[in-house]
């Protein structure tokens, strides 16, 4: 094994690319990455590089997502699909514990969290930022979530800087991308022009160096022109964002406009379908469910994803606190872009655009914010004071 150092830059040719994949599996990682399924690019277990969406791209808009063929053989020529890495750390359904009735009481056995180390192969800059956000949610407080923490400790992050932006992307506004600045173990940039199909590979952590150290013969020295080429690719992506959202004073703007008429307007369009919260890489709300066995002696406690758009989410003494669609959309947006800062010291939005793309009626949070920003201080009596 040849030692690789953090900060090293190498060129990995397209033909040698599978060797990186093999190095991961040989190091014991289960590789999770993008693959085409049901007309979308999703994240799932990859058997080989052949499972990657070679030659595919996506076209996204408000309420629109289509896969299209590219005229090249790019492996990462798209942005993000409906899936996020969240589900591998915070599963949509998860057993927390099992309790068994005993003489005079019961005993509780916490669910062990087992599994191989995971290589997240093909994380985007916005997704690394989202991982940083969920780390704060599940590990940043006085109590750490046992399941999330155990899985998170086993994750290797292999980032791919975006070579193009999507129609609903606004990572530049949120300061999360498209260039990878921190939080990755390895960073790849796919280079399709000015020479053969190749990748610039940057070693960003000791764990990344250990993987790269397994494949010295697959790597070539990177020249200054390769680094410049990668920077130009990222700069071109940054210059072509599909959306923008000025963030200056955003939490204060929202806090000061809880009775703005725009909430009524968006509530007329919103279906409360929960799609935005399901595709969001940082939405973390969940419910606990008691699942008793038929004999009544054993029960399981399950946790499953929930959404602030569900009516029962705020049920108190048989009534929901947030009965109207208005109050539920307002909660989601003011939390994501506003109160999240007070809770976790960061925005809850990373600018990935999923909530815009996957909204069945095409609600665009950047447009909702712009509407409030255009007429701050407007008040509708209906949403206003109680007394």
């Amino acid at each position, binding site marked *: 094994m040849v030692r690789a150092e953090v900060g090293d830059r190498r060129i990995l040719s397209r033909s040698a690319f599978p060797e990186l994949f093999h190095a991961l599996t040989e190091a014991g990682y289960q590789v999770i990455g993008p693959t085409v399924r049901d007309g979308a690019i999703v994240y799932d277990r990859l058997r080989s590089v052949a499972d990657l969406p070679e030659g595919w791209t996506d076209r996204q808009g408000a309420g629109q997502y289509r896969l299209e063929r590219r005229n090249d053989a790019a492996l990462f020529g798209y942005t993000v699909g409906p899936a996020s890495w969240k589900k591998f750390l915070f599963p949509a359904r998860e057993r*927390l*514990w099992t*309790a068994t*009735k005993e003489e*005079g*009481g*019961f*005993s*509780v056995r*916490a669910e062990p969290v087992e599994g191989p180390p995971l290589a997240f192969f093909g994380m985007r800059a916005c997704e690394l930022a989202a991982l940083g956000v969920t780390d704060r*949610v*599940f590990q940043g*407080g*006085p*109590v750490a*979530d*046992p399941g999330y923490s155990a899985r998170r400790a086993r994750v290797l992050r292999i980032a791919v800087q975006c070579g193009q932006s999507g129609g609903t992307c606004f990572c530049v506004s949120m300061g999360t991308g498209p260039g990878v600045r921190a939080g990755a173990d390895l960073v790849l940039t796919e280079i399709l022009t000015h020479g053969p199909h190749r990748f610039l590979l940057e070693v960003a952590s000791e764990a990344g160096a250990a993987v790269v150290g397994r494949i010295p013969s697959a790597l070539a020295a990177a020249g200054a022109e390769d680094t410049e080429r990668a920077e130009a690719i990222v700069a071109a992506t940054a210059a072509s964002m599909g959306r923008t959202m000025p963030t200056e004073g955003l939490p204060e703007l929202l806090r000061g406009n*809880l*009775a703005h008429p725009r909430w009524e307007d968006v509530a007329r369009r919103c279906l409360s379908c929960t799609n935005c919260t399901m595709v969001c890489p940082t939405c*973390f*709300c*969940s*419910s*606990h469910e*008691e699942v*008793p066995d038929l004999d*009544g002696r054993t*029960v399981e*406690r399950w*946790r499953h994803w*929930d959404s*602030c758009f569900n009516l029962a*989410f*705020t*049920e*108190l*003494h*048989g009534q929901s*606190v*947030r*009965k*109207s669609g*208005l*109050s539920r959309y307002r*909660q989601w947006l003011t*939390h994501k872009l506003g*109160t999240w800062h*007070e*809770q976790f010291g960061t925005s809850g939005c990373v600018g990935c655009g999923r909530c815009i793309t996957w909204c069945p009626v095409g609600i665009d949070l950047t447009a909702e914010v712009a509407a409030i920003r255009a007429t701050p201080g407007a008040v509708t009596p209906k*949403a*206003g*004071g*109680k*007394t």
Partner: protein
Amino acid sequence: MLTDADRPAPTPGHPFAPVPYRVRAVATETPDTTTIVIEPWGTRRIGRTQPGQFVMLYAFGIGESPIGVAGGHPDGQLVHTVRNAGKVTGALGRLTPGDTVGVRGPYGHGWPIGEAKGRDILIVAGGLGLPPLRPLVYELFARRESYGRVEIIYGARTPKDLVYYDEIQTWRRRNDLRLQVTVDAAGREWYGDVGVVTTRIPDARFETGRTTAFLCGPEIMMRMTAQALVARGLAPEAIWVSMERNMKCAVGFCGHCQFGPSFVCRDGPVLRYDRVQHLLSLREV
């Protein structure tokens, strides 16, 4: 407000695993409200509770519900008063001595008693708002000389909705406490005051500059009471309210209990009025 360092640690081990307790005694408060006294069943017990904190009470095979601590004793006993308002609280209300119940916690920030030392105390409770204030009342009794005047205003819908009825009669006999009990509506058998708790505020005896008020009850009752107190000159910073929201995890992960920037489970349930005033005046927050 307590810092995380002063706060008793929650149950060690898995944050979602309840600790088995045994029901020691059960008392019927009102037709739909029960007080249970529980004690550790095995060697494990939850940490010491502070007045105003809550626990997650677990009915085996049914589920969990956040319940305020109405009393805690050094030997590990806990007192909880539960109104039958659903599946879980219904099951908790049907418990009998010897039954097992699960507990995890204690959670949240309680009443800032230390900060209120040397000051006059005004307690305003509405309905089932009294149980989470009960440990505070006994803390004040235990260190009575550390506080100035203490006044309690307690209101319920009707006389039969008053909880801790006999206990309140013993409070009434104390000469170091002013107690006003009122009901929204009553028949001829009731000789006390009639009217919502805010109607008793003008009669409350406190000096605005040296009084801390602790409020617990339905949201509308706390909002109206706080407004009445501010109208009488009390600073919003001197008023504390205990919020209630749907909760699943009690440790800030499930998201259900959010009230503006606050997780009621972690930042509350007791919150300073001036910090939530703007949210209490909005619908459906």
